[in-house]
């Protein structure tokens, strides 16, 4: 019986070919474009978050109390290297770096701009966030006076590779100090603060320049997937601010939330309109065959079988749309994942606001599974109104009326 029902439903679903094809194209095209937009938007925000974690905050960052408020090297972590070594032994810690940062003025031959001198260990940074991936020009062979500068800072100061840049700031003894660097690499991290202000060089040189011990740091950044590590560290290091990526970058977290909300709203609206489409087709399909259903009921065919058959018809149409949508969506996502959406014409604008000019999409199985559930649900729901029409049928009246 079940097999017959499925066969009947399959035959009837595509009986009116033009109508069924239009519906399948509608569902397929909508789903395909919807999942690719979803993947692109999610790819964009995830990419920004990933690069900020890798280039700066990590999953957790530790600062001396008051440092973030005063932005002064007086408020630094004195025994940072020891703490980092201890933390590195924890199984949940994937990578750890210590950094020292001071704000000051960077001057090229003709221009000056407020900037930050950041002392890092480039080997550790490579393990921490694949630092070399951020290099746009040059390399990390810094030599004695080499430095790496952010792409926007380089633009503002008209710096090129091997240009000289002088950084001036206050040291740990409140004395004004200047140091000359030569640009050996230019980085593009999509982290606005780094791209517009950072001059990075070896941490020991910055420590020397500032007159602080090499063991001192202003930030300890940690990569870890363990959810409760922040709480553990907060309890262990009560004298420090232990902040998660979300605490440090609320705007990116909110951007991600906004993207998720926007995708959900888009998804709901599209699925509602898909529901209306399937409802229309199913309603007319049932009206067209109302006499057929009347005869079936008159012959003793139970209503529950008709209901099941109609549901299967709607499901087959929905599934047809889903298969087409999955093909379109996957191909579009694959293209956007490999080649990206090239917005190089707007590169200046996107770069200065911390975005990459080529946006790559993410591909997640959940885009397709969620769409499948939603399409199946819309298909099932769409038959309830038409089914009420059949339920109210008096077989004799229907056969007489259309005879």
């Amino acid at each position, binding site marked *: 019986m079940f097999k017959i029902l499925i066969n009947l439903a399959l035959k009837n679903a595509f009986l009116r070919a033009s*109508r069924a094809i*239009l519906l399948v194209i509608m569902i397929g095209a909508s789903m395909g474009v919807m999942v690719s937009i979803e993947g692109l938007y999610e790819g964009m925000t995830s990419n920004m978050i990933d690069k900020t974690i890798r280039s700066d905050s990590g999953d957790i960052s530790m600062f001396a109390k008051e440092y973030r408020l005063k932005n002064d090297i007086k408020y630094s972590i004195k025994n940072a290297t020891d703490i980092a070594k201890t933390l590195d032994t924890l199984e949940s810690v994937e990578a750890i770096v210590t950094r020292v940062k001071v704000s000051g003025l960077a001057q090229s031959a*003709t221009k000056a701009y407020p*900037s930050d001198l950041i002392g890092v260990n480039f080997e550790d940074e490579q393990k921490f966030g694949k630092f070399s991936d951020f290099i746009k020009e040059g390399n990390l062979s810094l030599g004695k006076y080499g430095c790496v500068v952010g792409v926007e800072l380089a633009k503002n100061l008209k710096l090129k590779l091997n240009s000289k840049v002088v950084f001036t700031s206050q040291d740990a003894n409140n004395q004004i100090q200047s140091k000359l660097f030569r640009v050996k690499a230019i980085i593009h991290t999509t982290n606005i603060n780094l791209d517009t202000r950072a001059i990075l060089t070896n941490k020991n040189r910055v420590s020397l320049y500032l007159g602080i011990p090499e063991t001192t740091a202003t930030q300890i950044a940690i990569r870890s997937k363990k959810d409760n590590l922040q709480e553990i560290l907060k309890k262990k290091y009560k004298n420090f601010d232990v902040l998660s990526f979300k605490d440090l970058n609320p705007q990116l977290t909110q951007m991600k939330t906004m993207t998720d909300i926007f995708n959900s709203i888009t998804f709901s609206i*599209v699925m509602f309109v898909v529901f209306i*489409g399937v409802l*229309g087709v199913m309603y007319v399909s049932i009206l067209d065959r109302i006499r057929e259903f009347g005869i079936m009921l008159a012959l003793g065919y139970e209503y529950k079988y008709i209901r099941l058959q109609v549901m299967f018809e709607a499901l087959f149409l929905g599934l047809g749309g889903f298969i087409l949508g999955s093909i379109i969506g996957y191909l579009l996502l694959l293209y956007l994942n490999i080649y990206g959406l090239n917005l190089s014409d707007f*590169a200046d604008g996107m770069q*200065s*606001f911390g975005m990459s000019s080529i946006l790559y999409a993410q591909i997640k199985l959940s885009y397709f599974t969620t769409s499948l559930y939603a399409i199946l649900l819309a298909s099932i729901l769409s038959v309830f109104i038409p089914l009420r029409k059949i339920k109210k049928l008096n077989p004799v009246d229907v056969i007489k009326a259309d005879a």
Partner: protein
Amino acid sequence: MFKLAIKNIFYYKGRSITTFLLTFFSATLFIIFVSFMHGSHKTMLHNALKVYTGTIQIYQKDYRDEGGYDYLIFDNQKVFNSLEKIKGIKSYTSRVETFGIASSKNNSSAIMLTGVDFKKEAKISELKNALKTGKYNTKSNCLYMGEDLAKKLNISLDHELSFVGSAIDYSFAADIFKLCGTFKTGMYEFDNSSAFLNREYFDGLFYSQNASSYIVINVNDLDKNNYIASQISKSIGKDLKVYTWQDLMKSMVELVKVDSIFGYISMALFFMVIFFVILIYGFINISSRVKEFGVLKSIGLRDIDIDKILIYEILILTLSAIVIAICLGGSIAYYFEINPIVIEGISDMYKDYGIISDTVPTDFDIFTIFWNVSLIFSLNILSLIYPIYYVRTFTPVEAMRHV
């Protein structure tokens, strides 16, 4: 034909209601969405212009590319004389910018010190309105400083600070200043690194009499900005270059364009789904009326007459939905232009992205509303092409026999 179309609209209620509602829904949504998108973009750009940038700036050629004191404007008065002759200019003033290190008792910071004519500046920027403490129009060695910068230097009103930089003849320039006023524009980087000094004192210290980094201009009517810029360009020397706000804020203009592209991509998805649903409902309706068209053809109506009936039907439904959508969507856009939505904290959250106001207004623009609804109208007309083609494939006899 028209009467027949009206009769059909009321007879086929299901299709009419669905088409009407979908058209109304999509047109209203589009008007509101675009008005909010344009409104937020316009606010972002206008706020940035209003705060400090002005609508036109004049530079010595190469200043923006090379920078430095060698590329200053060395005869302000000559340019001012030319500007006096051009109609449509609301106000203008000159500024001289220099970078250096400011130090309080315990803190130092890189700052941008700008020499301004405070009276003229009040007419061109929001600096005066941004006053937080102390006074705006300061004299002698009094500084008007960003609130965040004052916090960073840990100073308050009447406290002294030193500044070290270079005069425009590249000699060493240093002085002791007093903090006389603080401001907060909401532009984080600006408030965190800018200080202003009255022009007279600045010129004496930096030898910048009658010279400027650039001249900033505001026009009476922003729509005539480019025309006025071209007039200025013709009247000043060839060694000077005129930049409009689109050039000056290229990054922000580009970001706005990218945001608009994403907005239209999302809307395109909605339109595609709605277009398909209207197409499907139209097609279902027309395919169920093939017999009726067969009768009409057999009594002498031509294909073109049938087309006319169908076009009248969609025109009546679309236009009535669009008129109501214009009234509703337009009213909402107009209301929120006058009473913008306020999202507390949004400017603080997105300060890095140039957002300096918590208000999100709409932009009520008749022309924009017109093209919004024109697009919806065109899509509805397009949705009729396939159904018309389908009806035309039947001969009168085939149509009358159609089941």
